[in-house]
């Protein structure tokens, strides 16, 4: 447990901006999966055509789960936050 004055100085030197959600333009890519799953299901709720043995609605959702992983990889790569930390 750090002594109190130390703790306070530590807090101020970083400033309150450290704790806020840090959203940059590239992060907007993260909205795409929400559209694909939450909106897409209204249109993809069908059994046919079967894709990879799965009914179409199931395939649609599985496809988005895989795409989420890809999209997050892109965001991770392009996000400067991950580079800054590596150097520290």
């Amino acid at each position, binding site marked *: 447990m750090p002594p109190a004055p130390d703790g306070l100085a530590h807090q101020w030197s970083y400033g309150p901006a450290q704790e*806020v959600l840090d959203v940059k333009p590239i992060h907007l890519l993260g909205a795409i999966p929400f559209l694909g799953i939450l909106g897409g299901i*209204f249109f993809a709720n069908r059994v046919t055509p079967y894709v990879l043995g799965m009914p179409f609605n199931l395939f649609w959702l599985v496809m988005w789960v895989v795409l989420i992983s890809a999209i997050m990889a892109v965001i991770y790569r392009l996000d400067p936050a991950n580079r800054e930390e590596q150097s520290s």
Partner: protein
Amino acid sequence: MIALAIIFAFLLAALGLGLRARRGRDMDLEQWSVGGRGFGTVFVFLLLAGEIYTTFTFLGASGWAYGKGAPAYYILCYGSLAYVLSYWLLPAVWRYAKRHRLISQSDFFVAKFNSPLLGGLVALVGVVAMVPYLVLQLKGLGIIVSISSDGRISSNWAIVVGTVALTLYVTISGIHGSAWTSVLKDAIILAVVLVLGIYLPMHYYGGIGEMFHAVDKAHPQLLTLPSSGMSASWFSSTVLLSAVGFYLWPHNFSAAYSAQNERVFRRNAIFMPLYQLILLFVFFVGFTAIMVVPGLKGADADLSLLRITTATFPSWFVGIVGGAGLLTALVPGSLLLMTSATCLAKNVYRLARPHTSEEHIGRLAQLLVPALALISLYFTFNGGSSIVSLLLMGYALVTQLFPALLASLAPRQFVTKQGAAAGIVVGVTTVAVVTLSDATVGSLLPGLPQPVKDLNVGVIALVLNTVVMVAVSAVTRGMGPAPGTTTPLRPESEATAGTG
């Protein structure tokens, strides 16, 4: 009997790993509950992923595929979307938690809103939401042991024995035990689910596509979302609600504290969604079971995975499946118990006795573990809900913390502690009233169009919650200390701050 012996061996292995993980470490509260904040990508992955593969996914997801069909797909989606959110949410939470040496989820609200009372409220909501979650793990344990023993051990006895094992396990090892058992559990569950999900459709139908065709022919409505009830609108609102609530579970929230650095979360956001795909094979098992072991109605659908396993495989393999199932109840169950106990000791008990020492709180948390286990045991014996409906109720409750959390992470903190508290109270009350009276949005407001009627009721509670939070904040702004000025969380200041 072979099956039971194997399940028992799994239990001993889990207890052994828990004991081993503890050795050589001094167990103060920070070690016991957040692992000294030293976990890297792999361990945090396993802790959070381990949390996901619970009895709920193993028995509940196959049970829903069996009993309800396409609506079960929501289980595949919400976790993946929660990981997308985690990319932004968890680093912000982690940074703050590390700086202020936070241990429980409620500590976060105490520090952010400078209000121990709000922390107490958050702790209570979390614990109440976790009871149905614990109950479903215990139900799962009971199902697994009684089916694997061919009914020789009654489900009730199995639940009692499981609860004792769970309590021992948590008291002995804390979070280090959970992380190590996660390693064992994930390896086995992955193997078991893949084997069952691929072999069963092949064995009974000659392939996954053939299996779906046969199911569609026999039950034409099952493979699409219905036009009312669990419709696309229900699906979307439930996925959104659960994705938002995912990290609001006290145990998920504080499991995030155990990471070494914040990049751990960003990297995990890439891999965790792929891990979700294991669920696909759980669905395959549930769908295959529809025509192989027909006739399981209501909450009994949760038995489908084990029934088809015992109908298909030799006893030793049933034992392995049962052992894997035991671990899926033990790991999350231990996290749930430990987190509830820490929350109650730190954030509720201390409201009444502000000058309790850190050491005493630690001891109290360990004593609360058996007490909480007993309460869950009581509810397990007195309720007939299916595994998934129990979890949906917990999610609706815990999600009510989301507006306040989001507000606390905004650049300028508009929401006051009074606003946050009022919003949470209104949201939780709405969920409780609606759940207890068995109402739906449609029965409350019959004039609305069908898609609105089908919305998950937690979404309505969330909207009311947000409206109240903003309104009360607008009124109470300017009263008390300026929002956004947070004090470091220390036992001495924590007790007095915010009460004046």
